[in-house]
């Protein structure tokens, strides 16, 4: 550990203290530290005894990371993670600053970090991951990544740089193809859905059928972790092919929907791979059942006795899954669409989502920078819109007032979610972003 790293960590900690006083964002301290010592991540994370796990892919990174961390901690491991969903290297460093001493020593056995596809490579150039969990590839923020093929290549490169083992989605051909690209001696493990529910895959993945082999899913094999839902649609088991003693469940997650279940399956398959013989199915089931939804991902907020659900939507696949999970329930619905950089500046993708499930009850209000575009999109699906209010604060006020005491749901893009979550936190005494007590 060099003087440079210590100086960088000290500067970062100073920035962090100041920016917390000001209630500022989470990335600046990381930026300061990284500028002063570009190798700070290698110096701090590179020495962890059980390695560095990177979780990447388009959808479900934050939820899956949170679940994997909970699984490993339940098995007694000390885990460093970036729990805020700030999935750039700067966010990782900012998280690090809270936990690391100036010596650079981190009190952890293993690091589990979520990174978006582009930043994962920036990270892996610093710290080659020992393990990678690759979730899926969908169209997301195309103006940032430009092409699906490009995104798939980023994940492939990440897998190539991984030194110990990769866990791949058997049902996503962009991800399963990566198995042919891992280094010699790198182990490949799989997660997916049980063949008995293969017909539900379209709900989980974007209907992207540009390639003939896109639907050619990998046949399940020994050791695969497969999602098997119960009849009631809420409980499920993660079934390990050829090893029923390792089956986890049946259990019910606090976060609803098929997407959360597949995330739990991915996290469980990865935990079992990392823990080997010390993996305990009952421990895993208890840990998963206790995980609270991350901010804005199906999080339920108590608004004067009525539930308000915040559902983050970022791309066609995610919005379609969210509507499949929630769309037909009789609750008041608001949709908030921003087009800031972190949302993806292009809102074309709204036309690749079917809003039919909202038609019967309509949408009470659209809001955000692109509120009118959202209302226009709904018009083309025959969904009645009650009000359009671009200003998020005025929109939220109106929505809460008009539906006082009744169940409510807000579908929102990332920056709209952050804004609304802050307003709701102020009003209803919630934990602030980055201070998630369950993380």
């Amino acid at each position, binding site marked *: 550990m060099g003087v440079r790293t210590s100086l960088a960590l000290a500067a970062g900690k100073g920035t962090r203290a100041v920016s917390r006083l000001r209630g500022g964002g989470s990335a600046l301290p990381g930026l300061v530290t990284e500028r002063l010592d570009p190798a700070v991540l290698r110096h701090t994370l590179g020495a962890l005894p059980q390695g560095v796990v990177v979780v990447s892919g388009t959808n479900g990174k934050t939820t899956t990371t949170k679940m994997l961390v909970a699984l490993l901690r339940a098995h007694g491991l000390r885990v460093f993670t970036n729990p805020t969903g700030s999935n750039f290297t700067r966010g990782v460093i900012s998280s690090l600053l809270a936990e690391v001493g100036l010596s650079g020593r981190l009190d952890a056995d293993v690091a589990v970090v979520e990174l978006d596809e582009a930043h994962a490579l920036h990270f892996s150039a610093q710290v080659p991951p020992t393990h990678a969990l690759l979730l899926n590839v969908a*169209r997301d923020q*195309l*103006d940032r990544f*430009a*092409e*699906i*093929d490009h995104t798939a290549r980023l994940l492939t490169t990440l897998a190539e740089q991984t030194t110990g083992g990769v866990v791949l989605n058997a049902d996503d051909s962009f991800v399963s193809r990566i198995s042919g690209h891992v280094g010699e001696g790198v182990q490949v493990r799989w997660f997916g859905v049980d063949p008995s529910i293969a017909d539900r895959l379209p709900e989980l993945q974007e209907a992207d*059928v*540009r*390639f003939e082999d896109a639907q050619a899913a990998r046949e399940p094999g020994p050791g695969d972790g497969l999602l098997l839902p119960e009849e009631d649609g809420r409980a499920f088991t993660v079934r390990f092919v050829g090893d029923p003693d390792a089956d986890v469940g049946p259990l019910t997650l606090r976060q609803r929907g098929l997407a959360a279940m597949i995330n739990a399956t991915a996290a469980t398959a990865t935990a079992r791979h990392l823990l080997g013989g010390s993996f305990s199915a009952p421990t895993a089931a208890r840990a998963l059942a206790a995980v609270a939804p991350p901010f804005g991902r199906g999080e339920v907020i108590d608004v004067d006795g009525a539930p308000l659900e915040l559902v983050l939507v970022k791309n066609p696949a995610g919005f379609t899954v969210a509507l499949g999970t929630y769309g037909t329930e009789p609750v008041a619905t608001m949709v908030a669409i921003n087009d800031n950089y972190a949302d993806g*500046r*292009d*809102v*074309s*993708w*709204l*036309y*690749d989502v079917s809003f*039919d499930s909202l*038609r019967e009850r309509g949408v009470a209000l659209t809001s955000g*920078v*692109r509120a*009118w*575009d959202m*209302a*226009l*999109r709904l*018009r*083309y*699906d*025959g969904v009645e*819109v009650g009000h*359009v209010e*671009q200003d998020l604060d005025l929109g939220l006020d109106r929505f809460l007032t008009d539906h006082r005491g009744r169940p409510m749901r807000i579908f929102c893009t990332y920056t709209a979610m952050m804004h609304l979550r802050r307003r709701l936190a102020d009003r209803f005494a919630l934990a602030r972003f980055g201070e998630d007590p369950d993380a």
Partner: protein
Amino acid sequence: MSEDRGVAQALPDDVAALADVPADKGEVHVVHLYPREMSIYGDLGNTRCLAARLRWHGYRPVVHDHHPGAPWPGRADIILGGGGQDSGQVRVTEDLARHTDRLRELALDGLPMLMICGMYQLFGEAFITVEGRRLPGLGILDVTTRGNATRMIGPVVLDTDFGSVVGYENHSGSTVLGQGQQPFGRVRHGSGNNGSDGHEGARTANVVGSYLHGPVLPANPALADGLLEVAARRATGGWDPAEVDDTVAERAHQAQVRRLLGS
């Protein structure tokens, strides 16, 4: 809508029901070229928009999704094509070559077509790759595109024959108009064909090529109806639009114009 002619993209019944006019003004056939391979930026929204507007105007939309290798649809009154990735473009090249003569004839004959991004490039004279390889296009529009290291990305406002048009561009190809080739619009915000000459897209007769997705038609109803008028006249001998409430579309349009031009 028509029951049995391979209508691949259903117009929601309730949208049809929202139209308080009978669909008694005749059929208009909309052909969407390569909706699987070349539809990455919400291009399906353009098809949906045309189908819905036809119905709202009292026409009966028939949508044909044309896939590579499939027989050419029995009838086309308006043709749409979208953007794709490089891999998607490769997948449609052969089929496009098979229908080149037909598409050229239809274009000369005044059939309305809207080609976005990747299909706009393929409708041009040629695409010259970063390595300098020349890939011939259909030559319906006199434009030449060069592969480029920098992408042109962001929201766009244009002045066009159809009034102001808003959309979003995302392309690395840099396109130059041939001598005498009319652009689709003049750039008021954004990069346009190449970021330097102020031109966006190309227009020959009723064939419009453009980099704008967004998708471009829903928030630009004048453009949508401009194309539909030509299509309906060809299909039914006249254009008899109904009163369509475009308040929401106009607000979405104006919100972008105000935000990007400050006026």
